């Protein structure tokens, strides 16, 4: 592989970062628009989440025979992270098609679009954090400031990984139109294979297949420290290595294909 596509991809990302104020403005104005349209705005999905946590919490604590004070915080954090991840993944394959009018009319760095998508979902995520805070007030967990910092590090690593993955999905999805339905229909399956309703540690020995699912690493890295446990450091190392390899791949893909994208839409 020649180094030129990589450098072109790097240049694309550099120009996107130059437009960071635009991304921030769009994320804020989208959020504002949702507040204007309905009284509690972005809190509607949050309310849905809260009800989901109550319902799932009631059923699964009974089913797994766990105490609510242990299970519900784990479920709340898991669901909120899952929504961040699945939201970014399901929005990406059709992203370029939805932004076709901009791409065909204004010269723009391609990575701008996935970056704004991830930024938008991050705004939703911060709204949902209120549920997590409420749950943690009701069921206090033995976490410490250091562990919270480790959890934030896990979140940042997750976001960095989401960025490269969303970008590649966006480009592949622009070229192959059946990627979007394929991805969206496999998300519910991925949900069941991800440690959202349960914790990876609760699985019996032999269920190590769960560690083939990248989402397991993200959820574990963010959630375990909040529940007062320090996960295996190799999880963070794994996320960092994936981020590094993923970004290298993504920059090469962007450099090679981003200038062909306007012809595909």
């Amino acid at each position, binding site marked *: 592989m020649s180094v030129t596509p990589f450098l072109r991809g790097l240049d694309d990302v550099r120009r996107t970062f130059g437009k960071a104020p635009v991304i921030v403005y769009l994320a804020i104005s989208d959020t504002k628009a949702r507040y204007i349209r309905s009284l509690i705005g972005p809190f509607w999905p949050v309310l849905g989440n809260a009800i989901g946590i109550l319902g799932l919490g009631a059923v699964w604590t009974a089913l797994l025979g766990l105490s609510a004070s242990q299970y519900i915080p784990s479920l709340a954090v898991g669901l909120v992270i899952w929504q961040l991840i699945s939201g970014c993944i399901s929005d990406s394959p059709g992203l370029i098609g939805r932004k076709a009018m901009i791409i065909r009319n204004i010269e723009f760095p391609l990575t701008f679009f996935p970056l704004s998508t991830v930024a938008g979902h991050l705004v939703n995520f911060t709204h949902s954090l209120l549920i997590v805070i409420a749950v943690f007030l009701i069921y206090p967990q033995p976490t410490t400031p250091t562990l919270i910092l480790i959890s934030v590090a896990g979140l940042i690593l997750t976001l960095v990984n989401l960025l490269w993955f969303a970008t590649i999905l966006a480009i*592949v999805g622009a070229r192959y139109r059946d990627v979007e339905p394929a991805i969206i229909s496999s998300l519910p399956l991925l949900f069941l294979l991800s440690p959202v309703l349960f914790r990876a540690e609760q699985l019996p020995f032999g269920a190590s297949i769960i560690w083939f699912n990248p989402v397991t690493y993200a959820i574990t890295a963010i959630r375990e420290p909040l529940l007062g446990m320090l996960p295996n450091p190799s999880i963070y190392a794994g996320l960092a290595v994936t981020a590094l390899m993923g970004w290298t791949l993504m920059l090469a893909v962007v450099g090679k294909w981003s200038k062909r994208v306007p012809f595909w839409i």
Partner: protein
Amino acid sequence: MTFIRLDNVTVRYPIFNARATSIRHHLLNIGTGGRLSNDVGAVNVTALRDVTISIENGDRVGLIGHNGAGKSTLLRTLAGIYVPTKGTIERRGRISTIFEVGAGLDPELSGYENIRRMGLLMGLSLAQMDAALPEIEELTELGNFLALPVRTYSAGMTTRLMFAVATAVPPEILLVDEILGAGDSSFQKRAQARIDRMISSASIFVFASHSNELLRRHCNRFFELHHGVITEVSSDVVSALG
């Protein structure tokens, strides 16, 4: 110094059919070595062929040619949206484009919000947009409509909004595809003064149109495109077209 120089530019692109945009189909092809189907499903179109032109400061270029001759492709190539398959393009100057009605607009948001968004997307700052706002309000003549969602606008109103935003801060290079003719006659008259001012303040103006009257009024150089091949023609040719 503003300029656009194209040297031997060829733009070729594939037009995919449903088969070519299916990853399932591609996997099948790889898996069977193409034995089940060798239909690639893509037709390559050469939209521009060996275009060598130099557009310099002060040029007002009119593009003529039939539908599908390559006018829009050339405009997008000049704007840097399409990258040449072959050849090189050199360009200096801030570009503003008016290609498609509704480009970059969010139909759910108000006119005011869209003005800010489009300005940002075009590379202007919020301060610049706020400074230009009174003039945009006046030119669009949309009044209270600016507070309503853009989806309630007619096509003419949308065009007025787009034109006002694209010209809010005079660009050095203005590229316009066709739509200048939209809007009712009172807007046309008001826009006329603005268009004339814009075109005279822009260093380079490139305009694709089928209206020979508009072309003659605004342009001083003319290029004819025919199946992607470009030739410079004199203004007499445009006059002769009627």
